[in-house]
């Protein structure tokens, strides 16, 4: 019989719990409201995607990358396509690159809208969540117009994009870009600068730059800790180096740099930047074919490559070893939420249970890409 530490009560938050953003179980040792130690248990959503990848040909695996981070499946398709193209080293037509950037950035906005909404409903304000969903429906309509699906798009393929955009797409996107910015101002009035919201998030779970790098935290969470590292700027892929957008970095407006409020605010600023990017891409539009010539039976030359892209939740990397056949020999998926979640035990010594919900919400983790 294990020695039962009777000072602390074991409390299971999850795997079925309203605010664990998916099937995650947190075993909390607490003596009341204050949490002393948290051990996350993951693996409830393990589908062995890496094993499946070894059984499927390269084009067949693209729909599975949708299911990695289903709130940002365009970005996941993009990272996978970039990996395989790196080994094939084929030239992507410019129109396909522009389309890819537009889709990736629109998906970043819709993913951040869910992050914003779920954190606000974790904090008790349900209305901003529905406002976020309302804006996200607009983007879902755009994606449905382009590729027919509203969540798992399978649109960005190896060599370019599946189909060219229908003619009504550009005007509808412009309509969205005019409609969206005042909504962000509405969120800020309603939630971001609300005293209770600030009190709940300021100075909570401060991640220092050293800890962030030690635990491999990436994306908005890393930038909130004051480190200006965005792969779209540091390792430009597609045509991000030609685009003008700035990288929001945590300045500790409401508390210390790197607290939960900063992480939340990164996403609000990033939504504005993404809208700016999409507007520039629409202006740079040009004719051209939407996909490079890729043989139907795709044999990728032997080699090893690690390619990473800036997903809304962080750096999604694919480490691909190919042996020249039509199926990858080994495909390691480096998921951003896996590293982001691994810092939770370190952050949660001495916080309250309500803060634990704030930590999980501000890290914006998503379970399918953790368990793969």
């Amino acid at each position, binding site marked *: 019989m294990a020695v039962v530490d009777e000072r602390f009560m074991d409390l299971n938050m999850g795997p079925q719990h*309203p*605010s664990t953003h998916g099937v995650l179980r947190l075993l909390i040792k607490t003596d*009341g409201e204050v949490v002393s130690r948290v051990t996350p248990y993951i693996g409830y959503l393990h589908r062995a995607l890496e094993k499946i990848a070894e059984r499927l040909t390269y084009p067949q695996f693209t729909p599975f990358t949708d299911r990695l981070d289903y709130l940002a499946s365009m970005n996941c398709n993009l990272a996978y396509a970039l990996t395989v193209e790196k080994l094939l080293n084929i030239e992507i037509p410019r129109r396909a690159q522009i389309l890819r950037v537009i889709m990736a950035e629109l998906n970043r906005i819709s993913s951040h809208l869910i992050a914003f909404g779920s954190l606000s409903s974790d*904090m*008790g*304000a349900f209305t901003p969540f529905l406002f976020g969903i309302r804006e996200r429906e607009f983007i879902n309509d755009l994606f449905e117009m382009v590729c027919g699906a509203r969540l798992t798009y399978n649109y960005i393929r190896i060599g370019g994009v599946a189909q060219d955009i229908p003619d009504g797409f550009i005007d509808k996107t412009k309509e969205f870009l005019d409609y969206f910015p005042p909504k962000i101002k509405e969120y800020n009035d309603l939630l971001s600068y609300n005293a*209770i*919201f600030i009190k709940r998030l300021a100075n909570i779970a401060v991640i220092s730059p050293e800890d962030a790098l030690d635990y491999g935290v990436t994306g908005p969470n890393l930038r909130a800790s004051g480190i200006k590292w965005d792969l779209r700027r540091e390792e430009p892929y597609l045509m991000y180096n030609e685009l003008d957008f700035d990288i929001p970095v945590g300045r500790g407006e409401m508390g210390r740099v790197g607290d939960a409020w900063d992480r939340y605010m990164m996403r609000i600023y990033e939504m504005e930047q993404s809208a700016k990017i999409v507007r520039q891409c629409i202006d740079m539009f040009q004719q051209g074919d939407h996909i490079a010539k890729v043989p139907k039976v795709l044999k990728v030359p032997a080699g090893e490559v690690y390619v990473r892209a800036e997903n809304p939740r962080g750096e999604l990397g694919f480490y691909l070893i190919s042996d020249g056949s039509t199926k990858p020999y080994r495909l390691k998926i480096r998921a951003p939420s896996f590293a982001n979640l691994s810092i939770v035990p370190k952050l949660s010594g001495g916080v309250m*249970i*309500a803060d634990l919900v704030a930590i999980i919400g501000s890290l914006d983790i998503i379970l399918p890409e953790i368990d793969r």
Partner: protein
Amino acid sequence: MIELINNIIGNIHSSTPMIRWLVYVMVIVISSVIVLSFALLYEGFATYAERKVAGDIQARIGPNRVGPYGLLQFVADGVKLLLKEDIIPFYADKWLFIIAPYIVFTASFAAFVPLSYSDHVYVANMNVGVLYIIAVSSVVSMAILMGAWGSNNKWSLFGGMRAVAQIVSYEIPIILSLLAAIIIPSSLDMKDIILYQSGGLGIFRWIIFNNPFTLLAFFIYFTAAIAEVNRTPFDIPEAESELVAGYHTEYTGMRFAFFFMAEYGDMFIVSAIAATLFFGGWQIPFINGVAMPLWLRETLQVVVFLTKIFVLIYVMMWIRWTLPRLRVDQLMELCWKYLTPIAFFDLIGASVWVLLFNGKGVYDILSALFVH
């Protein structure tokens, strides 16, 4: 009501004590049935109104399926809850678990009694009305703890502890702010308080306009009242996103309905007290002087009283769908560091004002200046 009983008993005074006792009980039963049906009907419509207001604020339609415009939605909910399986957890403390919802409901229903709905329509004209309501509503916290402890569930235990801490500590600001309002009419009887506020076009003699201190007292009272009723931003005992469902996690079916209805009953009581004490109860504004038949005046008074209450209830619902939730220690901090000290100074200020102007409000002083 007592006059009613006296004159009934009066004209059968020659009868034996047995008959007199029987009539007394019969009248009590009838009056309680009337008030209970009013309370249940109100609570039904309140749940419907809450969902309609929430829908309205969140750009949704809200219930409109059951009955015209969805008005019979609460009947459907009630039937559904009746038919739901009534689960009592295995290791639950059976009697505590069963009794708790009834006590919560009776406590909140008992507070309907001292209210005076109009000149002659009231249940019991207690001369300790306000004190009785405060006493009865503090039974609620004990009942919630019984329910939470009885259901033998870690989450409901958290909810119960938080509920007790919150309700008990928020009674201090409520009592202090009510005191600041009561020293003006210097009577605890609801009817006298309302009669004091008559005259002056039915509005200017409201206690809230009496002096600046009572104005502040209303806002303290209203905030503390929202906390007393466990509604956002103070709905920590049943914080869905943290504690799954707080103290009523294990309750199903009709038992849960009792907790649910008690919450709306409390909302009614709290806004009824605010309406009576600060907004001149059933004083008909503007056309009070016009002679009109008794029954029309009574109904008009009841209508005015209920609209004031429903306006306050709408404000509570509006606040619920806007603000996030406080953390437990921030809630306590708000109570002890902000509300209570300010309520104390406010009480001192109000009593000094009464001393200086021996009870006359701003309106009386000004009208006294201009009249002669």
